[in-house]
């Protein structure tokens, strides 16, 4: 395949393509996250009865259908940012507490999930920009339990909980993103109508 010139894309195409891309990445992240959880359970010999608490680590209100797209995306983006922070902390803690050791499938998968999450964040950030044109502030890490427990078992459960959290928010991302195209279209139509009405009034 020889070099090809960059093809031009319209704004509408870009939005739709960005949403589709973000959705695909979220789905891939979910798949990779499930593998990571599987590998972690296998690694730590966690049986099915080992469960984590229902409470969320990420302190973001869950996206509601009542929220506007921009807010939904903001919540999602914020939650994913926190997930990444937790994940980075978990990886650092795990390596700090349990040693680097050799890089096996688990470590590779863990790194992959982190990077995929970063890619997803780039895409949700893009979507957020596209949706509202508002700068997204990085959520404060204050109040997050980033230090983690010091007891080994609790640490392992904490890490497991973080992986679960990433998995949860990835699923949420998929749901949110899959609902976006129609929303964007409607909102765009509404925005256009409002603008035209305003200009008519003038």
């Amino acid at each position, binding site marked *: 395949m020889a070099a090809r010139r960059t093809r031009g894309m319209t704004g509408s195409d870009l939005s739709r393509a960005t949403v589709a891309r973000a959705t695909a990445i979220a789905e891939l992240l979910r798949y990779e996250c499930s593998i990571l959880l599987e590998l972690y359970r296998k690694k730590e010999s966690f049986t099915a009865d080992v469960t984590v608490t229902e409470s969320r680590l990420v302190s973001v209100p869950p996206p509601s259908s009542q929220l506007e797209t921009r807010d939904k995306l903001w919540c999602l983006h914020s939650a994913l940012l926190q997930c990444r922070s937790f994940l980075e902390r978990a990886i650092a803690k795990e390596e700090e507490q349990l040693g680097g050791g050799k890089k096996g499938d688990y470590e590779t998968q863990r790194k992959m999930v982190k990077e995929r999450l970063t890619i997803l964040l*780039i895409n949700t950030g893009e979507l957020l920009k596209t949706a509202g044109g508002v700068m997204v502030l990085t959520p404060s890490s204050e109040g997050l339990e980033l230090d983690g427990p010091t007891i080994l078992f609790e640490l392992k459960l904490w890490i497991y909980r973080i992986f679960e959290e990433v998995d949860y928010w990835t699923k949420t991302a998929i749901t949110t993103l899959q609902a976006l195209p129609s929303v964007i279209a409607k909102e765009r139509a509404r925005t256009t109508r409002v603008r035209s009405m305003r200009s008519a009034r003038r």
Partner: protein
Amino acid sequence: MFVVIMVCARVLQLLALACLGSALPARVEADYYLMVVPQSPVLEMGTNFTATCVIINTSEVTADDLYWTLAGTTVPKEQYTKINGSALNVTVPITSEKTEWLMCKCKKKNTLFFIHNEGKLIHGIDLKKGYVPEKPENLSCVAVQQKQYISTNFSCEWQTVGRQTATVPTSYILYTAVLPGSGQPYKEPTQKNNTQVKLGDTFPHYMTLEVWVEAHNKLGKIESEHLKEDSGWFVKTDPPSDVKVFSENSFPTSLLINWTHLIPTIRLKLTYRIRYRQNGTQNWTDVPLGDTASNIKSFRLQDLQPYQEYEIQVSCKNSREGHGYWSDWSTIVTKRTPEARPTSKPDLWRVIAEGDRKNERRVKFICKDPVLANGRIVSFDVKIQDPKDKVRNGSLEWKNIPRSSQGKITDLKQIDLADQKSVRVYINATNSVGKSDEASLFILAKARESELAPVEELKVFPHRGQLWLEWKPPNSTKLVSEYVVEWWVEGAQIDWQKEKRNTTRTAIKGHLDKFVCYNVSVYPIYNGWIGKPARKEAYLEQGAPLEAPIVRLHKAGRNQATLNWTEISRGSRRGFITNYTIFYTSGTEVHNITVPANTASYTLTSLSGNTKYDTWIKASTIGGSKISFNHSFTTLRYAQGEMELIVVGVSLGFLFIVVMTMLLCVYKKDVLKENFWPQIPDPGESTIGNWSPDYPLKAETPRENGLLGISVLDVDVCDGKCVFEEDKASLSLKKGKYLSEEHSSGIGGSSCMSSPRQSVSDSDEGGDMADTTASTVQYSSVVPAAPSGYKGQTPNSQPQQALFSRSESTQPLLDCEENPDVLQQEGSRQSQRSPPRPPRCTDGADPAGIAEQQELLEPLDFCPLGEDSEQATPVDGQAADWLPAPPPLSSYMPQLGGYRPQ
């Protein structure tokens, strides 16, 4: 525009010079009085470069004293520009890629300053040259599969454009940006036209990648076109793994293919392509992409041939249209379709040979499996029917013949068929599922075969590794239903193939060996009736013969030789012999003659006689040639009949000589007799008184030797008359001389009568005298010799005494020549001691007297054989010397005159 640029450049240069003056380090100023700017320039090929030489820290040297050299060659002054009294510019074109030194030097001067500072009045710069980089083209990148992931090692390659030099090389940087993203693009520098860049820890699926290459060197940099595509666009996966093929008995024309792929669909959706072919064939059949476009994991191949082995391969790529590279093909999986009933007829044929009996043929029926056997043929059912019997008996019973386990041809049945009879044979093939339709073939009565016309203008030729046939349809009103192409090699089973009725050109599909002569026949088939064949011989490929003919001499002559050579055996020819080349040499020049292939003998002509020749022969085909061993032969010394001619000629010559000799003997009998058997004067008849000097001395030819006599006879023949009749006087003197030279005693005229030694010695003693004083001296010399030669011999008989008396009597005789008076007295004195002896020089003695004298001599045994033979040789020699040379004769002429007065 160009002028403006030049002016700007010049201004900049002057500014640089101005800065240079203040910026030069103190050390440089102290070390040199000249400085070239700019320093270490990198120059673009094909441009002009201007450098300035500045004089610093001295006023002893001016710009007029400066000159430039480039690569050791002085730059012409036309290229100089004087800026001011202390600066000189030079402009040189940059044409050579080599790095060169541009030197500013000061002309030699005989000033103290120059002498002390010569080393400081020079400065140079190294001109590095190169090309401005050009935009790389055809950038392409690929991300390959690694286990269940796509590798983050992103490989790219591109085509470099333009030239570069060793001193100014072009480097490249591969940039890869993941979009959207705020991070910096990945960079990978390289000197080559390909490299790999690592895209983080995971392949950025669904993201956009922007890739470009920057080519840069000291003269500039340039970017290639940017390649901006979805990451999946660059992916090349592994082929599907675990490809399995299943056959189902209920579907003999179908195969089911299953496969898996390590790449999860969530990561990359794939599309597949499938291809298959019958085992052993070359061409693949592709399943239409539309049938395999979806993300499938199995596929059913349909419309296949039953009981055929198929080879199947699967490949995949990103399912997104236009994205990704097709993977390599999976490893071949082979599977055979289930059996089905044969759907075509068996291929029936026959071989006809001479029968054991007269007017009978031996017909062997053979067959091949049906083309669409759809299974393994286990047997054939055969029925042979006489058309007449059909009318009588209806149908005969079928005979089941198992298929041959060896090879593809089954011998069905062999029958002896009368020439005037015809039969029809029926056959069907059976496999495990069922029977085929019937095939049939007619064998006509021999006489009728020629009624069915053969194909015309059959040509057989090799082409692209196959043996091709071309023919024209038979000129017949009957319709040809098909053709049978048959080929066979001596000693091997025949093979055949059938062609459709409209075929006029085909290739033999069976396996053919190279360098083997095939007999190829084309039979037209007229609705089962076999027509007359057209035949040709052909090679798939011709090569040099394996063996050469053996050349032998058949017949040799003096100037020609006939050579024969053997024919190369059919198996060793490996091609059609195009010609033979005969080489022959006698050691210097090699001659060659090319003769046609159908020749087995040749006569070399223009050969030298009695000469050894080496000859060899080269047999050639279009594929090469083979040279035989040398064969040597020697031509004859004489041509045929030449020897006989010589023998006959010599014989005739000898016969002629003999005849001539005989004739001579007959006709010149008297002369011969006189020469060989001369009349010896009878001493008894001799009287001293009868002899006088004036009395013509009879020619007394030497008689020592027969040959000499013949020589004399020759002279006689030529000049006989003048010698013997007309000039007897001169001849007598000549004889006298002869006698003197012959050292004959002159008494008897025969060497037997005197000792030759005595004569020789005497002659030696008085040779000169003999030339001048004639025979008197001879006789006087003979006389003392004779007594000494017979010393010790006591004559005990009277005749002996008489002989000696005669010898001694010659001396007085000679004396008497000078003084006839004294001669008388001396003669009487001599006669007292020994009986008087007649002078030998008289020719008037009668034969009787000679005979008596011989009778007297014989008892003396005075001529021993040894002495005789000893004397014979010198005499001969003398005679030979004498005979052809006339001078002695002429030399005696004066003597004759001188003698006569005596």
